[in-house]
């Protein structure tokens, strides 16, 4: 008995010990800030090509040096790492945060209010929808880096060979899915990712849903609006009829299916162009991109992820940090270095830099298609009404849990509608627990 007890205690001990250690380090670190000597900033992120962009910054600047450290992507553990570091007081000056999670970090008090440094000139350079997503409670909390409109990637060779038309509407998508399956019983033109609610949310967003809204100082959650119901029923139907695959996003199973031709389409975002290129180098020339299907044929898109650069609460160099973040988002050299790294197809939130990114992006993989022109159209069609709530990690964790039950890789028992309802209920509970007001529930 004592052995097992000590195991439990060891867990506490380890946790406590680590906390103590990090606290100690925090007290020891930091040091004097100020004007004398060059400022060294630390930066945690994971987006492709960041290292190359940081190197370009360091090469061009003498007064500020940036140390970049690559961390796991947000939902794969990066966010936990950041918030623990902030809590322990040893966080870097700058961190990458995606739009959906930014309000969560703001509400925890983990990032700094950078309103004084976000000048009107800087704002003017950026996509208005992106600026809006980083403006919460009338203050600015991060510098938008990219916009991530949803687009549809498909295997052009497969679609041509079987004379399947590239879907323009969701009805077309269903028809095309059935046709693809008929042509090749193994082939599916899309995937449902039970582990990735953001793809689903992007589609609800596109359909005109607005899950999180505010009125006065109260939150208003609505996930049972007609748009969400439409999207939910549509995907439930695709799943029921076996018209899409179910895979964990970016898992070996998904990659394997893409490689073997079992999956011939991908509902991704602008950054997905680089991911496909990096994941499936031998399918160069076989892929093409199209606008994401819409409900009525008129262009519309949601955003799937997209990252910002935020300054952490404890940073002593907020001014320099925002200058660096602004440089990363708006300097041509930064975007050129990043996209030229090969695996990045970042679509800058800074509108003036799009030609730079387009030029730096090697389009041979897409048979010379001007994918950036496509991103332009998609970004312009992003519905500006959507905003994220301050408890997105609760929303998304619950959705992920429930999607796993309702439509997991091992088959499901339950409905997507129940999953969405559970996600909304959990979010309301979490907001109330934090002492926030939620209306009409």
């Amino acid at each position, binding site marked *: 008995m004592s052995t097992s007890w000590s195991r439990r205690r060891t867990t506490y001990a380890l946790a406590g010990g680590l906390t103590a250690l990090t606290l100690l380090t925090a007290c020891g670190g930091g040091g004097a800030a100020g004007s004398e000597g060059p400022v060294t900033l630390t930066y945690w992120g994971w987006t492709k090509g960041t290292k190359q962009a940081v190197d370009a910054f360091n090469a061009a600047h003498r007064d500020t040096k940036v140390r970049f450290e690559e961390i796991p992507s947000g939902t794969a553990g990066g966010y936990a790492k950041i918030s623990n570091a902030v809590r322990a007081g040893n966080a870097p000056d700058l961190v990458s945060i995606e739009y959906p999670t930014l309000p969560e970090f703001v509400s925890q008090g983990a990032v700094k209010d950078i309103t004084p440094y976000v000048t009107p000139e800087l704002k003017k350079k950026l996509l208005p929808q992106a600026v809006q997503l980083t403006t919460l409670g009338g203050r600015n909390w991060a510098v938008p880096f990219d916009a991530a409109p949803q687009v549809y990637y498909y295997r052009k060779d497969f679609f041509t060979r079987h004379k399947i038309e590239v879907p323009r509407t969701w009805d077309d998508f269903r028809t095309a899915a059935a046709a693809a399956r008929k042509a090749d019983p193994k082939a599916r033109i899309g995937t449902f990712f039970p582990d990735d609610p953001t793809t689903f949310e992007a589609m609800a967003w596109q359909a005109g849903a607005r899950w999180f809204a505010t009125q006065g100082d109260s939150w208003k959650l609505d996930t049972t609006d007609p748009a969400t119901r439409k999207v939910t029923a549509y995907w439930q139907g695709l799943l029921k009829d076996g018209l899409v695959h179910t*895979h964990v996003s970016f898992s070996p199973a998904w990659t394997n299916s893409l490689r073997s031709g079992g999956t011939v389409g991908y509902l991704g975002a602008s950054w997905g162009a680089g991911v496909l290129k990096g994941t499936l180098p031998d399918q160069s020339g076989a892929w093409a991109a199209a606008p994401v299907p819409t409900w009525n044929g008129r262009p519309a898109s949601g955003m799937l992820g997209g990252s910002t650069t935020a300054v952490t609460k404890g940073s002593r160099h907020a001014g320099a940090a925002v200058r660096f973040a602004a440089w990363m988002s708006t300097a041509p050299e930064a975007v050129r270095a990043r996209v030229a790294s090969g695996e990045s197809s970042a679509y800058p939130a800074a509108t003036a830099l799009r030609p730079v990114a387009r030029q730096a992006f090697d389009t041979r993989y897409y048979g010379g298609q001007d994918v950036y022109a496509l991103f332009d159209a998609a970004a312009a069609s992003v519905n500006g009404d959507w905003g994220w709530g301050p408890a997105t990690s609760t929303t998304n964790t619950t959705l992920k849990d429930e999607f796993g039950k309702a439509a997991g890789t091992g088959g499901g028992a339950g409905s997507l509608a129940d999953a969405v309802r559970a996600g909304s209920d959990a979010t309301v509970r979490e907001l109330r627990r934090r002492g926030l007001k939620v209306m009409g529930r």
Partner: protein
Amino acid sequence: MNAKARAAVVLLVPFFALFVVVMVVPIGYAVWLSLFTEQQSGLGFGGTHTVFSGLGNYTAALGDHAFRDGFLVLLGYCALYIPLLLAGALTLALLLDSALARARRFFQLALFLPHAVPGIIAALIWVYLYTPRLSPVVAAMESGGLGFDFLSPSGALPSVVNIALWEWLGYNMVIFYAALQAVDRSVIEAATVDGAGAWRVATAVKLPLIRSSLAMVALFTVIGSLQLFTEPLILNQGSGSAVTSSWTPNMYAYTAAFGRNDYGLAAASSVLLALAAALLSFFVTRLSGRSARSGRSGRSGRHPSRASGPPAAGRPVRGPRPPLAHPEGRP
């Protein structure tokens, strides 16, 4: 203070110093954390302030069906896993110990080998073997007409039990086998001379003699099961399965702390889990103590010194200890 007392103090101080620093203080810190919660105001964008909430986190955890469901999952897990583990390990050990066994060393090693694989790696291997359209096992089963969704809501529990069995069966088999090796051969010879067959020897002679190891393995397994974490976490994060992020109480605490930044709730649920483990181990010790005592009466002739020792008050005197120490709490 005489020299003996001084020596005792000198020898004990390092232990108690470490004990306080790495055990008492962190547990106290966890209890302290569990008494506070973080509140926000307005729309929540003004940061947080910490307020004392008394037992608020405890009632929140107990009131959350996800936390309570975690205990139900554990109950189901124990009900499925413990009988299978004990029966399987015992059968293998008895087979190895019987006269029928060949290549004992080889089987001992082969059966123990999975235990040398770290839990995370084991879980990752099994996720691969469970994933439809990726796993050769699932493909083979489907072509044989034996479709089973390992990652579905009904398949998740057996899948986790299977991983745990794979990891721990050989380990516990070694414990039982070692205990069997310690059984006095003359007792077995006497039983054989009296006409007992192999089956009778196993059930009527060997089993009662290793009852204390059985009780010990049962105890460790029960407590270890309460802390079920690694395998389901991998199944949750990497497979898109029906295993949720709060599938077991330990995962609930983990998600509260690292997913939602709710350290108070995480601390409270950890303390509750620790209390549950303490209660359970108390009852299992009492129970196994009783059975060990009744089991010992049969062999008091072999251990006159033990039988005539002072009566154990509350704490049972164990039978012959298996030669292999149990280094971990998670069999």
